[in-house]
Structures are given as C-alpha cells and as structure tokens.
C-alpha cells in the first residue's frame, strides 16, 4: 500500500466499488427483479431529497463513521479488533443506563455523562480482550469476536432485567428524557449532533496518529513489529493494548451517539451488524480519515438505498451486507490485481 500514487489508489478503489455494484445488480437481475426500478428506488432512498440525505443516509453514516475510525485505529496499530460490534453495544447500554438513571436534570450535565459512560464501557469491553491477550496470550481476533456474542446477550439480559421498561412487557428500556438526547442537527430531520462528533473523532484520531509520539509508536507497531521492537523504545504489546482500548472507547461513543441521537432507548438488535460493516468502511477508506468519511457515507447510502429497495422493489434489504462483503473482498484483492497489472505493463514496456 506504500508507494502507489493517490490518484491510482482512488481509481482502483472506485473500480472495486463499481465492480461490486455491477456484480450485485447482475444478481438482482438474475433473481428476476427489475434493475432500473430497483436502482431508482435505491438512489431515491439514499440521495433523493433532503429527507433521504439527512434522515436516512447521513443518519446511518454516523455509527459507521465512528466504528470505521475505531476499527482503523486498531488496524493501524496492527491489532485485529473484530469486536467493534460488542464495544458499540457496551457503549449503548452504558449510555442508556446513565441517561435513564443519572440524577441529573440539565442536558449540559447529562450528555457529557452519557458520553463518558459509553466511552468507558466500550473501552472496558475492549479491555477484556486486551487483558486476555496480555495476561494469557489469547489472540484478540477470537476474543473480540466471542465478546460480540456475549455483548448481544448482555444487552438482551439488561432489557429483560435491570433496565426493562416498568410494565415488563417489551424487551426494551423506557425512552430517554429530553435532556438525555442529542439535539438534532437539521430542523425536522433525524440527523443529530452525533454526526459532528463522529467527524471530530475521525479528524482527532488522525491528528493523534500523525502528530504525536504515541501515534507514531502505534503506526510503527502496525507496520513492522520487529522494526518497532528493534528500535528499542517501543513496547509493542503495551502500544497495541492502548490502541485496542482507544478503539473500544471510540466504538463505545458510537453506541452513545446511536442511543442518544437515534433510538432514544436500548433494545435487542440495536445494531444491524454496524461493527462488521465498519471493517469494510475502514479498509475501503484505506484507514485514512478522509477515506473513512467517504466510505462511511457510501455505506450509509447503501444502507438507506437498500431499505428503500425493499420498500419499493421488494428486494431483501439484507443484500446490503452482501454488498459490503463483496466490496471488502474487492479491496482485499486489490494489491494482487495491481501487482498483476504492473507486471503486464512492465512486460509491455520491455517489448
């Protein structure tokens, strides 16, 4: 990924997205759906008018942006955190618990409290994996994945037990009070201030990586473990554990943003796999903040487009995750494809 020019990277990423979209449209056509109706429905649902843009696409972009940054922070330090989903849920649960029960009246107090609780909970959830790795040598890939399933059930337990609404009928919490909610960003649209926080987090994380010693150590640890260790100044294990904690904290904040900004309550199935889609967001964005913002918007649009296709063309919305996986695989295939092209060109020039 080093040494290739920006325009070339951008071009090849665009090719991946276009190829994935065509592959999926072909499948839709083969399944007997009308592609042009579907495409129009998708475009309308994602970008057709201010409601589609603010209340659907950008609203969906917000958690993906947070989680994409969370994944990227870990990946850049060489930690394979596949547990953003669980850390998101931990943050969401903490935000809901604080938002419902903290004895605070004003939003000025309440929102920072929720924010801090969510970040701490997300970090705490990631800390389990970091501790298992540091103390027992358990690889973070497996532990973060398994912790996702624990988190799903923990949320299930909370909304059927300690946090359930007082009639004990539905597996969900009461709605948050006004003061515990993030204000809307655009009048009468569902986009909320979480989006702005997500942008700030994306840029802040990038700044830390580029301009601080800690960021430098994390980057080196991610590029080459042996180089980092032989430099003598970098305790790779500790640096990677910190990166995992930071990643978990950001994922936890995503949970706060979703509960305080969108759903206003905690329930099972809060996340339709945001934490997994985030891996595609981060890698399509080349782990770079601008790239991640762009790819989060893309995946947000894919989500709202897919919803609209289900409503208007009867195409199952689940295919959005297929598309995410296909794009992710395309990004993974890129280095090989580019190497092949480069070899072809060299051969051509030699002739």
């Amino acid at each position, binding site marked *: 990924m080093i040494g290739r020019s920006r325009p070339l990277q951008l071009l090849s990423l665009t090719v991946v997205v276009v190829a994935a979209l065509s592959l999926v449209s072909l499948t839709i056509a083969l*399944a007997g759906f009308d592609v042009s109706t579907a495409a129009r429905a998708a475009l309308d649902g994602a970008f057709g008018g201010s409601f589609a843009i603010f209340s659907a696409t950008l609203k969906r972009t917000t958690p993906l942006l947070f989680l994409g940054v969370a994944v990227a922070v870990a990946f850049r330090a060489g930690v*394979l955190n*596949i547990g953003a989903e669980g850390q998101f849920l931990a943050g969401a649960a903490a935000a809901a618990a604080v938002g419902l029960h903290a004895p605070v009246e004003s939003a000025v107090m309440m929102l920072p409290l929720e924010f801090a609780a969510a970040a701490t909970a997300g970090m705490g959830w990631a800390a389990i994996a970091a501790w*298992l790795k540091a*103390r*027992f*040598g*358990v*690889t973070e*890939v*497996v*532990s973060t*994945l*398994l*912790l*996702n*399933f*624990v988190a799903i*059930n*923990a949320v*299930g*337990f909370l909304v*059927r*037990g300690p946090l359930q609404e007082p009639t004990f009928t539905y597996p969900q919490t009461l709605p948050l009070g006004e003061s515990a909610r993030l204000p809307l960003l655009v009048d009468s649209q569902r986009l909320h201030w979480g989006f702005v926080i997500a942008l700030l987090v994306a840029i802040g994380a990038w700044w830390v990586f580029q301009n601080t010693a800690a960021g430098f150590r994390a980057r080196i640890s991610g590029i080459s473990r042996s180089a980092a260790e032989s430099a003598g100044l970098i305790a790779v294990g500790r640096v990677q554990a910190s990166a995992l904690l930071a990643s978990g904290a950001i994922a936890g904040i995503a949970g706060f943003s979703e509960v305080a900004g969108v759903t206003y309550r905690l329930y099972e199935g809060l996340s339709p*796999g945001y934490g*997994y*889609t985030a*891996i*595609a967001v981060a*890698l399509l964005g080349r782990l770079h903040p601008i790239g991640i913002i762009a790819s989060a918007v893309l995946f947000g649009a894919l989500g709202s487009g897919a919803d609209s296709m289900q409503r208007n063309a009867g195409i*199952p919305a*689940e*295919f*959005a*995750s*297929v*598309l*995410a*996986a*296909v794009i*992710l*695989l395309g990004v*993974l*295939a890129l*280095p*090989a*494809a580019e190497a092949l092209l480069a070899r072809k060109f060299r051969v051509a020039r030699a002739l």
Partner: protein
Amino acid sequence: MTIPIDGFLEAVVRGATPLAFAALGELVAERSGVINLGLEGAIVCGALASLVATVAFGPSAGLLAGGSAGLCIGLIFAFFVLVLRAQQIIVGAAVSILGLGLSATVHRALTGGGASAIHVATLPELRIPFLADIPIIGPALFSQSLPTYILYALFPLVAYALYRTIGGVVLRAAGEHPPAVIAAGHSPAKVQFMALCVCGFLAGVGGATLVVAQTGTFSDGMSAGRGFIAVAVVALGRWRPVGVLLGVLLFGSASALQFLAQSLGWNVPYNIVLAAPYVLTLLAMAALRGSGSAPAALGRALNRSASLV
C-alpha cells in the same frame, strides 16, 4: 431434586455435534497452515442450503447440499487467500459477513420476509440396540441422529489421515514449514487448497446438521458464532483431534446448560444461559494459556513462488 444426568449428557452430545464438524474442518485447515475464519459463513450457508435441499429431496440430500454450500464458501476463501494472497483473518471475516448476508437475503427472498417460515421434518433418532441401554452414557452416545454417528467415524478417520498417511504428513508439514514440502516435491498451496475444501465441506455439513437434525428450520445468523468458536476450540484442543473432541464437548456442556436450567426449573435469565458457551470458551482459552503447539507457519502467507498461480 434429582439431576437428569442422562438427559443432560444427551444434550451435551447434541449441542456438540454441529460444532464438531466445523471444528474438525478447521483442524484440517489450521494443520495445513491456514486460519479459516470464514467458517461462520460456511456453516450458515450450509444450513440454508440443507433446508432447501431437504424440502426437495429429503434429509440425506440436505446434508450433502449443506456440505456443498460450505465447500463453495470455502472455495471463495481459498481463492482470496491462496491465489490473491490476501490477509487470512480479514478475508475470513469478509467471507463470514458474505455468508451471513447471502443466506439472510436468499432466505428472505424464499419466504417473503419470514412470513412463511419453511419447516422440514428432522432426522429421527437412531437407537442402537443394547448400546443405548448402557446406563448414563448409553442414551447420550447411542440414541442420536445420523450426523452424530458420522462423527464417530470421522474423528478417527481425520486422526488417521493426519498422522498415518503420506498426505497427512505433507499437510502437517505445510503448516509447519512450507519449504520442506516444496523440497519433497509437493505444492504447499495445493495442499492448503485441498485442506480448505475439506474444511468448507465439513463446516457446511455442520450447518446442515443444525437444520436437518435439530431445528428443522432456518433463521438468520443461526450459526450463532459456532464458526468462531470452532477456531477457538481448535486452539483449545492444541491442534490435535482428541483435544478438539474435548473442546467440542466442553462447548456442548455449556449449551446443554440451557437444558439443565429448564429441566431443573432454575430461574436463570435466558440470555445468561445463552452467553455461557462464549464465556466458557474464553475462560478455557485463558486457562489453557500459551500456543506452543500451534503449527509454526499458521496464518502466514506462502511465498509468492510457493503459492498457486
């Protein structure tokens, strides 16, 4: 109150069966040097394919169709890892997302939004005369459905193949030291390719078992992390067949807690029981610390000269 011990043991074996197929497959793949995290996708696609094939042709076809679907997912994984030489873990995650999304999409298209769930009759329990009458362990081991008995043959078979055949030695060598395999005149990539095919197929059969032998229907994400647990179980079992067997029985016990809680009337919240297998797997991984017996070249990409194409 008496503890229904034979019922509990039966539930242990039952719960362990689908996972055992997947874990055996993962064992083969990891001994050849590849971590296949795409197992989850293979299991869930195998489950859906088996449901469809069972409706059309009956349960044995269901098991085969499940295996074939798992094989297809395994081929996708193998293509990206062996041909394009992409990072195994991330490809695995992507393939799992793909399998989960694909099965959910197709299932919704088939059932029209889950309004009309498809149900099939599950395989009957085959009671083996005399053996099933052994007290305590008899019903658990010898009053199960067909897939469990297949496993009784499969575990020794895989162990024999890995340790007592030339192919098995080559496969293990590919996981330890690929250059040695090349020196011996074999291609590590081809060995890994075949291992991944076996892995995908077995995971698919595991998914089919969930449907054909247990639930009789499909639900989105019904693999419920078994693919990831299989990866954990292989590490827990120290990359050996006997260890893997113990690992899947551990998982089986955790999932049988559900049975125990019900039959004893414990007032344990449902979700805590459901979370038990994951927590127990994590605890076991921590308790059996260290990975000294992992294949030396596990998870490493082959050199370009050694890979396919």
